[in-house]
């Protein structure tokens, strides 16, 4: 068991480090070249299984996305294959050095995390009329072994590949 957990922690650590430093699903091709080595803010996209008129009735975005205010740019377009509406969101001023981004993600203060959570919650609200909550109160207890897992699940909707 210790081997397994150790292996999982190493693999997970490498993945998290790659994602923190490299950005989700991006290679260096996406980086702007230049003295500051800054990159374009990436689009975070979710497909909602509803027409655009349900996603933003009268042009009003769902509350979790509207709550991000002018800090983000939002685009809607019909999804191919009659799959609903693609909702794309990115920071208006998202170009930052990767190290700064990594630090913000570790401390839970990265605005891109807020975008992911808002996208996921908006999709759930529109599709199912509510945001699914985890069980509460928990039945588990903190131990040194589950500390990394607890830290990860606290960011359950704010991280991932979205």
């Amino acid at each position: 068991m210790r081997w397994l957990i150790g292996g999982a922690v190493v693999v997970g650590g490498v993945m998290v480090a790659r994602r923190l430093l490299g950005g989700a699903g991006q290679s260096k091709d996406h980086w702007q070249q230049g003295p500051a080595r800054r990159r374009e803010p990436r689009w975070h996209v979710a497909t909602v299984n509803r027409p655009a008129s349900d996603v933003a009735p009268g042009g009003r975005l769902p509350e979790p996305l509207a709550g991000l205010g002018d800090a983000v740019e939002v685009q809607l377009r019909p999804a191919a294959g009659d799959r609903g509406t693609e909702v794309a969101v990115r920071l208006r001023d998202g170009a930052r050095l990767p190290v700064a981004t990594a630090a913000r993600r570790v401390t839970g203060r990265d605005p891109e995390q807020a975008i992911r959570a808002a996208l996921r919650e908006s999709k759930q609200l529109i599709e199912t009329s509510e945001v699914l909550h985890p069980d509460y109160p928990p039945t588990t207890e903190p131990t040194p072994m589950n500390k990394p897992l607890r830290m990860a699940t606290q960011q359950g909707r704010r991280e991932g590949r979205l």
Partner: protein
Amino acid sequence: MKALVWQGANELAVRQVPDPQMRNEQDIIVRVRRTVTCGSDLHLLGGYIPFMERGDVLGHEFLGDVVEVGPQVRKHKVGDRVVVCSFVSCGKCWYCQHQQFSLCDNGNTNPMITENVWGAAPGGCYGYSHALGGFAGSHAEYIRVPYADQGAFTVPDEVSDERALFASDAAPTGWMGADLGGVKPGDVVAVWGAGGVGQMAARAAVLLGADRVIVIDRLDNRLEMARTHLGVETLNYEQQDVSGELLERSGGRGPDVCIEAVGMESHSSGPQFLYDQVKQQLRIESDRPIAAREAIYNCRKGGSVFVLGVFAGLVDKFPLGAIMNKGLTLRGAQQHGQRYIPMLLERMARGELVTEHLATHTMPLDEAPRGYEMFKKKLDGCVRAVFQPTS
């Protein structure tokens, strides 16, 4: 309330834990009448899926009585006897509306873990680690059921608890393997694994019109059960040449559909078991895919292989060459139970699908650690151990 909790690898205990609470308007709370062990629990129990916390409640196959109903629930009322699909699915996203319920976009409250490990997140599952949502399991007196109109099904009066219990997971999972594996009238179907899911897959193949159904295992009591209760043929891989027998029984072609119902801790009598066991224990591979390799190797040209057994990560010596050169179709899935459970309950009511024989041992929840010990080690002919938390 009382619940069976995971305490660490191969360590279980019955403890007092907080009662579940309603968290969403589409929730119900169910008082558990029966809840059953599943082979996939053994992967959690053994620490092969490293997303468990000390105190997590196990169990995902259950039925019980509705005791509390959320304001947006339309199909259920207090007092209903319901069987609940083990996967948490919203019923509204694109995947659910295309009957692929275990792929639900909205049922997993921790999508980050599986998005990183597998590339995308499936739905949630009760009692199946924080990778699948961290929902408390059913080996408890009470359980919260989200999206209750989608995942809970009223049990017809004429279907007993003992029979309906397996409509939660084993029966729909097995049926899905035969259905999505493409079983047609006249087919020869081979099923690896004579546990609950394998037996249900074999019975589904019979009911879908297969000409011959052959179940493969090493445990004589399970093979006898399959012959007696399902009316199928069997092979004991420790005593018989599986490849030779399958060729002989399929006219030299190989089975049209091969269903793998074993998963990541499979056994074999050959040296490959030692090879995979060593690699798994050294963490060079996470899963032992012995039965999956056999299914691919023995399947006829152009045939179909369906993986029902639970796999978590990476396997070694995977016969991709056989898949490509024999033109096989390889599929797998966690159960899309919401698609099949109403039909299965009707078949249970008509007596076409019997499941009671799977419940070889029934006991109070207090004895659940002993039940898992029997189940894991196959003691006393244990196929499934059923717990009655509120008896």
